[in-house]
């Protein structure tokens, strides 16, 4: 049997870890202890599995794990974290919509536009202050292909693509929770929408016109957008040394 030891190692990993290897994604709800077990399993991967085909998908260790770590530290004792990660990439069936023809004029013979939408991360966390945090990260790619023919009959085809990323973070405050408008507005690239009601809801959205170039930059962008809804509630620290 080929790759027997590595297959056996994968069979011993956490079930969600195995889902990442075989299906390149997972969807699960569990408390912080469950996520800690998954992270411990993921850190064993590189030492036991060397086959490239079974490597962890990109964004696993550098984006997913840091986000889960930080959000787990905010969970309450009975709080759960739901993560739906689809790390298959954008070039899989079902993520690309139908092509649309664009109006053309000679020498261009045809122009088509295709949109690819890749919602690769959804998170829902029940925080210890009673609020609910929801996070969505979507990569959207627009690809345009043109074909043209010159007077001598030479045929050329060109394509151009542009990717953007949309980050949305919503925090629904606990019933009766105190909230306030932050002293300073968010940066211009972050939009804020507040929905009043029994449970105030603060939605922060951002549209990045350039995809983050590293895992650290990706985590920083997500956490920066996620910061905005937390500025709407008073901070626990008073800026003074607490009594001990």
């Amino acid at each position, binding site marked *: 049997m080929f790759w027997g030891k590595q297959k056996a190692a994968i069979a011993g990993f956490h079930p969600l870890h195995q889902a990442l290897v075989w299906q390149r994604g997972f969807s699960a709800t569990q408390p912080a202890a469950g996520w800690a077990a998954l992270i411990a399993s993921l850190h064993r991967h590189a030492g036991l599995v060397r086959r490239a085909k079974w490597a962890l998908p990109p964004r696993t260790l550098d984006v997913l794990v840091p986000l889960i770590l930080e959000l787990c530290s905010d969970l309450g004792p009975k709080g759960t974290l739901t993560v739906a990660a689809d790390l298959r990439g954008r070039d899989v069936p079902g993520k690309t919509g139908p092509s649309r023809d664009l109006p053309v004029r000679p020498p261009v013979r045809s122009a088509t536009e295709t949109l690819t939408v890749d919602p690769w991360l959804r998170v829902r966390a029940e925080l210890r202050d009673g609020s609910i945090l929801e996070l969505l990260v979507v990569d959207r790619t627009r690809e345009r292909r043109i074909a043209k023919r010159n007077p001598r009959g030479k045929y050329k085809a060109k394509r151009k693509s542009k990717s953007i990323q949309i980050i949305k973070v919503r925090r629904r405050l606990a019933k009766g929770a105190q909230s306030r408008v932050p*002293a300073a507005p968010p940066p211009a690239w972050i939009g804020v929408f507040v929905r009043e009601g029994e449970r105030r809801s603060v939605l922060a959205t951002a549209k990045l016109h350039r995809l983050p170039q590293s895992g650290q930059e990706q985590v920083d962008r997500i956490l*920066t957008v996620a910061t905005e809804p937390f500025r709407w509630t008073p901070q626990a620290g008073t800026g003074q040394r607490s009594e001990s």
Partner: protein
Amino acid sequence: MTPCAVTTGFFTLGKCGQMAVAGCPACGRALCADHVADGGLCPECAAARNQFGHPAAAAAYRRRAHRHRTAQEYTDVGWYAGLDTYDRAPFDPGAGADQDYLDDGADALVDS
């Protein structure tokens, strides 16, 4: 009972609150058994000295770095002040943190 005064959480800050068994030798903060980091320091003092052996020290470093960075990006001083002075003081210049710009040694022309 003296409660552990170590800050926990990332966005929603709180105190550990477990029974303290020691004090940080650098800042004097009360520590429970789970939060005694390398050298008997609290997580923040350990992180400021680049000692990340304890998970809480790494978490403290990431939390402080995130607050510092986003407070600048949002131009919101109050966001960084959400950390109490125990959390912030170890990272202040001259507070014992590993900051190479403080002193480049006796034979250096200037301190960078």
